[in-house]
C-alpha cells in the first residue's frame, strides 16, 4: 500500500528520470525524445492534479509532507505539498505541455538536448515549489537556472547570446546573494527548515533577531531579482524577448518562482499579521507596474511587449501581496494563474506572427547559418511533415484578440475576473480596512485599471499594424502542431472562466492557509514518519 505522501516526490522524480533517459540517445532519436517528453509531462499533469485534489479535499492539516530518508520531522529534509505548492505544480505542468509540443515543429531541431534541458527545467521548478528546506530551495533554483541558461541560448545567434549573457551574470550574482542570505538565516535561527525557522523567529531575542531579518532581506533581494522587480529586473526583457518562442512561453512561469518563494517566506515570519518587508514589496511592485506599462507602450516588437507583460504581471502580484490581506492575495493568485497562461500563449502567438517579419527572421537566418545544414532541413520539413493550417490569419487573429482581452482584463475572460477579485478585496464594503492603508489601496486600484488601459492601447495598435494594415501581404505559414498548443492554452483560459467559482474557492483557501502560517508549521513539524513496508524487513 503506497502512502499518499509518496506522491509528493513524484513531480521531481518523473522529469528527472525522463531527462536522464534522454541523455542515452543522440539527436537522431528525436521522435523518441519527443515521446518521452510527452509522456513525462502527461504524468506530471496527472500527479500534480491528484496532489491538488488530495490536498484540497482531504482532511490533512495544510498539506502532505514527505520526509526524505524517513528521518523524524525537524531533522529530515522535507518536501511539502500544501495548496499553494500544488497549484503551482499544476500550473507548471499545464504550461509545459503546449511549450513542448510547439517546439517539436522547429525549435527542437536547432540545437542539441532541447528536451533534456526542458525536463531538467521542470525538475528545478517542481522542486522549488515543493521543498520546505531553505538550502534545497537554493539547489533547485540552481537546477532550474542551469537548465534555463541552456534553453535561453537555444538556437544561438548574436542577439540571443547578448541577452543570455546578461541573464546569466545577473542570476549568478543573485545566487551568491541567495547563499549569503541562507548563511545569515542559518546562523541566526540554527536551522534551514522553513517551518522551524518560523517557529524560532517567534521567540527570538538579542542579536539573533536583526541577523535573521538581514538574512531574510538578502533572500528577498535574490527572489526579487528573479521575479524581475524594478530596478532589479532590467535583465528580463532582453533575455526573454531573444529566447525562442516555446522557451519564452515556459519562462513565463520562471519569474513566478521568485514571487512564490517570496510569498512563502515573507508570510512565514510575519510581524503583527503583516508579511515581512510588505511595504518594500508593495512599493517595488508598484514601481514595476509603472515601468512595465511604459515599456509596453514603448515596445516596437511584440516579443519585447511580451516581456513587459511578464513584468507587469510580476508587478501586479508583488503589489497585491504587499497588501498582506488574505482576500487580495487570493485575487492575486487567480491573476497569476490566468496571466501566466496568457503570457505563455502570447509568446507562442507572437513567435508565429513575427517569424514572417524582419527582426525575427534575421535572427533565425543567423541561427541557420551557424548550424549549417539546418536551413535545408527545416525547409523540407515545413513542406513535408507539417500540415499547413488553412485560415491561418483568422486563427492567429482570433487568438491574438482573445489573449489581448485576458491581458487587458476585459470581461468575460479570466483576466477580468482576477482584476475584479483584487479590486473587490481592496475596495469592497466588507473588507476589514485599517485607515492607514487607504492610500496604498487607492494607488493599487488606480494602477490596476491604468495598466489595463495601457495594455489596451498598445495591443490595439499592434493588432491593427499586424492584421489590418500590414505593409506587405501577411500570409503566415503555420502548422497544426503550432496551432494546437495555442488553442489548448486558450481552451484552458476559457475553462478557467467556466470553473471560476471552484477555482476561486480553492485560491481563497490557499491564501487563507498562507496567512495563517500556524497551519503550515503544524503540518510540517508534526509530520509522521512512514512505517516501513511489510516486505522490507523479512
Amino acid at each position: 500500500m503506497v502512502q499518499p505522501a509518496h506522491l509528493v516526490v513524484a513531480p521531481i522524480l518523473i522529469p528527472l528520470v525522463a531527462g536522464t533517459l534522454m541523455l542515452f540517445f543522440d539527436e537522431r532519436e528525436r521522435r523518441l525524445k519527443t515521446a518521452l517528453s510527452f509522456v513525462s509531462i502527461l504524468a506530471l499533469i496527472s500527479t500534480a492534479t491528484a496532489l491538488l485534489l488530495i490536498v484540497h479535499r482531504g482532511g490533512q492539516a495544510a498539506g502532505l509532507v514527505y520526509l526524505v530518508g524517513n528521518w523524524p520531522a525537524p531533522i529530515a529534509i522535507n518536501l511539502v505539498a500544501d495548496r499553494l505548492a500544488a497549484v503551482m505544480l499544476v500550473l507548471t505542468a499545464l504550461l509545459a505541455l503546449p511549450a513542448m509540443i510547439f517546439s517539436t515543429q522547429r525549435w527542437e531541431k536547432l540545437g542539441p538536448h532541447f528536451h533534456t534541458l526542458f525536463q531538467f527545467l521542470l525538475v528545478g521548478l517542481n522542486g522549488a515549489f515543493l521543498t520546505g528546506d531553505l538550502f534545497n530551495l537554493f539547489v533547485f533554483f540552481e537546477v532550474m537556472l542551469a537548465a534555463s541558461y541552456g534553453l535561453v541560448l537555444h538556437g544561438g545567434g548574436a542577439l540571443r547570446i547578448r541577452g543570455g549573457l546578461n541573464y546569466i551574470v545577473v542570476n549568478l550574482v543573485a545566487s551568491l546573494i541567495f547563499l549569503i542570505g541562507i548563511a545569515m538565516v542559518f546562523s541566526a535561527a540554527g536551522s534551514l527548515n522553513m517551518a522551524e525557522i518560523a517557529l524560532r523567529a517567534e521567540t527570538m531575542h538579542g542579536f539573533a533577531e536583526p541577523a535573521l531579518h538581514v538574512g531574510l532581506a538578502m533572500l528577498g533581494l535574490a527572489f526579487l531579482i528573479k521575479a524581475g522587480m524594478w530596478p532589479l529586473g532590467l535583465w528580463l526583457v532582453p533575455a526573454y524577448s531573444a529566447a525562442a518562442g516555446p522557451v519564452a512561453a515556459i519562462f513565463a512561469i520562471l519569474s513566478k518562482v521568485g514571487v512564490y518563494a517570496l510569498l512563502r517566506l515573507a508570510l512565514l515570519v510575519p510581524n503583527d499579521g503583516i508579511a515581512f518587508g510588505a511595504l518594500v514589496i508593495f512599493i517595488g511592485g508598484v514601481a514595476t507596474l509603472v515601468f512595465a506599462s511604459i515599456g509596453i507602450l514603448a515596445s516596437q516588437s511584440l516579443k519585447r511587449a511580451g516581456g513587459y507583460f511578464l513584468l507587469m504581471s510580476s508587478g501586479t502580484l508583488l503589489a497585491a501581496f504587499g497588501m498582506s490581506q488574505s482576500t487580495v492575495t487570493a485575487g492575486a493568485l487567480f491573476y497569476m494563474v490566468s496571466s501566466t497562461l496568457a503570457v505563455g500563449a502570447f509568446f507562442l502567438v507572437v513567435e508565429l506572427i513575427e517569424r514572417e517579419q524582419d527582426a525575427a527572421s534575421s535572427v533565425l537566418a543567423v541561427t541557420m547559418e551557424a548550424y549549417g545544414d539546418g536551413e535545408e532541413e527545416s525547409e523540407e520539413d515545413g513542406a513535408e511533415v507539417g500540415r499547413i493550417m488553412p485560415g491561418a490569419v483568422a486563427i492567429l487573429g482570433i487568438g491574438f484578440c482573445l489573449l489581448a482581452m485576458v491581458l487587458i482584463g476585459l470581461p468575460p475572460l479570466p483576466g477580468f475576473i482576477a482584476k475584479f477579485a483584487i479590486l473587490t478585496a481592496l475596495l469592497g464594503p466588507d473588507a476589514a480596512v485599517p485607515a492607514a492603508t487607504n492610500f496604498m489601496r487607492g494607488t493599487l486600484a488606480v494602477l490596476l485599471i491604468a495598466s489595463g488601459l495601457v495594455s489596451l492601447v498598445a495591443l490595439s495598435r499592434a493588432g491593427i499594424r499586424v492584421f489590418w494594415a500590414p505593409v506587405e501581404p501577411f500570409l503566415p505559414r503555420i502548422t497544426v502542431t503550432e496551432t494546437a498548443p495555442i488553442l489548448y492554452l486558450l481552451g484552458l483560459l476559457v475553462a478557467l472562466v467556466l470553473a471560476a467559482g471552484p477555482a476561486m474557492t480553492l485560491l481563497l483557501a490557499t491564501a487563507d492557509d498562507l496567512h495563517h502560517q500556524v497551519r503550515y508549521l503544524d503540518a510540517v513539524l508534526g509530520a509522521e514518519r512512514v512505517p516501513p513496508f511489510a516486505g522490507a524487513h523479512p
Partner: protein
Amino acid sequence: MELVIAAAIGVLSASGVWLILRPRTYQLVIGLALLSYAVNLFIFSMGRLRVNAPPVLDGSGPVDVTAYIDPVPQALVLTAIVISFATTALFLVVLIVSRGISGTDHVDGREG
C-alpha cells in the same frame, strides 16, 4: 582569527564586486570567482569559528556536543562550491561562444 577571516571576506568581495562592474568578460569571470570564494568563506564562518573542533562524530564513547563544531555549514559550503564551480564553467562556455560570434570580449557584444 575572526579579524583575519573578516578581512579576507571583505577584501575578496570588494575585489569581486569591482571586477563584476568592469566591461570585459574575463574580468567578469574572475570577479564572479572571487565573490563566490567570499561567499563560501562567509557560509563557513556562520558555523562559528572554532579551533581544533572536528565536525564529524568519531563514534567512540558518549558524545560531548560542545567539543564539536556545527557540521551543517561545512556541508553547505561543499554544495555551494560545487554549484558555483559548475555554473562558472557553464558561463565560460557562453563567454567563449560570445567572443567567437561578436568578435569582441565586451559584455555588450560590441565595443564602446
